[in-house]
């Protein structure tokens, strides 16, 4: 399922070649749309020619609709896409500054590269200006507005999080908003741009494209983003079989070795009730209600944490298996179940003969933190395999 860890599949060179081709497509479409010409870009701000608005918003809604359609169909994992971190106020200030630079210089960084590539001297000078501005920023930010620049960090914060609705609804609303802006924009062009017939030009294409987009938006809104059950049923058979074949059930002795080892960070989720947890729990385990695994922010943290192995600790196998299915459906890697649950753990470490004690048994305390020294040489067949994590890389960094 997309996106792919391209560097792992094709190597770093292969990954760079793909990015290079994407860049070529990007540069070529910008140039073909007229974005290499500062006059076309600047005309946007005098309502003469709204090409910038049209191209940019059409691109956004086209990509957005495809992304969320693919996500609805289970072909693309939205959690693994890089969503720009929201730094609210630095973003607004930076945006205002950029707007000023845009209308004075007639380009934005991407379009100036295209202008330079087509030998436009104003494009070249703009690029040099951008490099200078970046240089000034890099050398002064830590000593000037550093605190402000790091402020109002809201993390991965999306419109659907903010509005509290399904992403599909937001997709449809954004499409409708963009179409309304296009309509208004063409009216402005008719008034200020001396293009009285703008609205009726190429009507067939415009209306059919708009129709397809609205239809796709309605489909995305109706489908909604996939539920846990749908995600589970779409998993490959091999993944689902791990549960029925008991490949994810880990004996207490192996869990202890993972917990005390240095290869990975163990995280124990104790899904029993708080009362049971307070009576006895394994040291450093975390009590959690399995319903918490419906929270997308928590899930995203779990699935992007590097080098982490999760163990589900429960009373009964059924609830442990349900929780495992939920986490597998969300594609959280490296999740295992403590075989026999908490009772299995207690039974093993209270009853298992330990050579160092005279009667072969440790003292009567419940084993919340078994002394690894006594168990480090116990042999077992390891089942835990640490899987590499696909984490979204930084965006415009």
């Amino acid at each position, binding site marked *: 399922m997309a996106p792919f860890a391209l560097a792992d599949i094709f190597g770093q060179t292969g990954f*760079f070649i793909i*990015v*290079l081709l*994407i*860049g070529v497509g*990007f*540069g070529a479409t*910008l*140039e*073909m*749309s007229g974005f*290499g010409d*500062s*006059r076309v870009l600047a005309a946007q701000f*005098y309502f003469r020619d709204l*090409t910038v608005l*049209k*191209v940019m918003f059409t*691109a*956004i809604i086209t*990509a957005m609709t*495809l*992304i969320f359609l693919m996500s609805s169909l289970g072909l693309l994992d939205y959690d693994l*896409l*890089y969503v*720009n971190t929201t*730094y609210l106020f*630095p973003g607004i200030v930076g*945006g205002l*500054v*950029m*707007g*000023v*630079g845009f*209308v*004075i*210089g007639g380009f934005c*960084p991407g379009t100036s*590269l*295209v202008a330079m*590539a087509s*030998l*436009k001297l104003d494009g070249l000078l*703009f*690029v040099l200006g*951008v490099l200078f*501005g*970046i*240089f*000034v920023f*890099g050398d002064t*930010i*830590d000593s000037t507005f550093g605190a402000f*620049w790091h402020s109002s960090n809201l993390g991965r914060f*999306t419109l659907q999080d903010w509005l509290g609705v399904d992403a599909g609804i*937001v997709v449809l609303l954004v499409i409708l908003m963009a179409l309304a802006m296009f309509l208004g924009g063409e009216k402005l062009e008719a008034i200020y741009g001396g293009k009285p017939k703008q609205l009726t030009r190429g009507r067939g*294409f*415009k209306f059919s*494209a708009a129709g397809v987009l609205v239809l796709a938006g309605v489909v995305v809104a109706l489908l909604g983003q996939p539920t846990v059950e749908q995600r589970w049923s779409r998993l490959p058979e091999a993944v689902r079989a791990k549960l029925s074949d008991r490949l994810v059930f880990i004996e207490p002795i192996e869990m202890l070795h993972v917990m005390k080892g240095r290869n990975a960070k163990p995280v124990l989720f104790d899904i029993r009730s708080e009362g049971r947890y307070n009576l006895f729990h394994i040291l450093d385990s975390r009590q959690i209600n399995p319903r918490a695994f419906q929270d997308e922010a928590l899930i995203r943290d779990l699935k992007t944490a590097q080098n982490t192995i999760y163990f589900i600790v429960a009373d009964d196998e059924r609830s442990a298996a349900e929780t495992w299915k939920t986490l597998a459906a969300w594609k959280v890697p490296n999740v295992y179940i403590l075989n026999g649950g908490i009772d299995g753990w207690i039974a093993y470490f209270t009853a298992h003969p330990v050579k160092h004690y005279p009667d072969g048994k440790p003292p009567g305390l419940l084993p919340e933190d078994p002394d690894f020294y006594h168990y480090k040489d116990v042999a077992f067949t390891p089942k835990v395999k640490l899987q590499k994590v696909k984490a979204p890389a930084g965006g*415009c960094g």
Partner: protein
Amino acid sequence: MKPSTQKAYLNPYLGGILLGLVLFISFFLTGNGLGASGGLNRFVVFIEDLFAADHVNQIPYLASMAGGTVNPLDHWIFIMIVGIIGGGSLSALLNGRFKVETRKGPRISVPTRLAMAFLGGAIMGYGARFARGCTSGQAMSGGAVLSVGSWTFMFAVFVGAYALAWFVRKLWLDERR
């Protein structure tokens, strides 16, 4: 190759759909959107690292990209810049727009235009780093995946530009208004 006559630009909606497809493919394959200023940023740090490596290592923001022996250009965002330039040249060549010239408003001279391009670029470069991304990496890419910060940023760009447009109209407009 001799430039032939200049062809017309694409219908903006068609251009937008093509650009949207490129953006989608980028997200679908790599998990990342498009970007321009990030790569330029790394280029600047690369140059700085050549001449003042100690200085780069002492400033946290710069050291995060080029501290020690790290090569700031060894990053996909810089490769994308190379692609953008290549794609831009290719399209300009094929459409007869590959020639040395300066595009400007009718009321200003070429040197004025070039000076303004540099000035605007410098402001833009500073602002783009302040906003952690430019029109491509922040507004378009973040907009398509519905980041709140990207949408507020996008409207801020338009507000900033429209607020100043009237005062600098001499740069772009003829005598019509």
